[in-house]
């Protein structure tokens, strides 16, 4: 289904309104960002926590992974603030 198609009520004869297009673009950007973030966190935390893969994830491996996810999200916030406050005015 065309992600830009809209019901006749909210569109014009020329196609979807700007608002519909902008919303769709924002949605797709957010989705792409979320997928990349997931991928990064998964790779980082697997590397950190699963050093000797065995036949199942141990309790300590699972809790390490949970903490790792929380810390990585926190690290993203710390870096984000450092970058924004360093931006030239």
């Amino acid at each position, binding site marked *: 289904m065309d992600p830009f198609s809209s019901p006749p009520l909210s569109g014009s004869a020329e196609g979807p309104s700007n608002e519909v297009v902008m919303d769709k673009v924002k949605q797709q950007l957010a989705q792409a960002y979320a997928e990349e973030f997931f991928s*990064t966190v998964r790779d*980082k935390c697997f590397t*950190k926590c699963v050093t000797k893969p065995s036949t199942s994830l141990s309790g300590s491996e699972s809790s*390490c992974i949970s*903490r790792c996810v929380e810390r990585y999200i926190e*690290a993203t916030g*710390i*870096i984000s603030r*450092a970058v924004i406050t*360093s931006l030239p005015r």
Partner: protein
Amino acid sequence: MDASHASELQYFLEQEKQKAVLNELVGKLTDVCWDKCITGTPGSKFSSGESSCLTNCAQRFLETSSLILRRFQSLQQ
């Protein structure tokens, strides 16, 4: 599409592009600085050493970036 609609979209795309560039920078920096600063097993909170390392890392990276840019500019003169 008339001119005002086109320019609204153009402005919107410019804004989203800048946001994406910023997100990419933050993503890359977090990746690099995590590896430099979080050397052991992740704990239930960051030590003050770890969190200041992350902040320092981001700031030093940006300074490095400016420094290299200035070097390139002076090399071209």
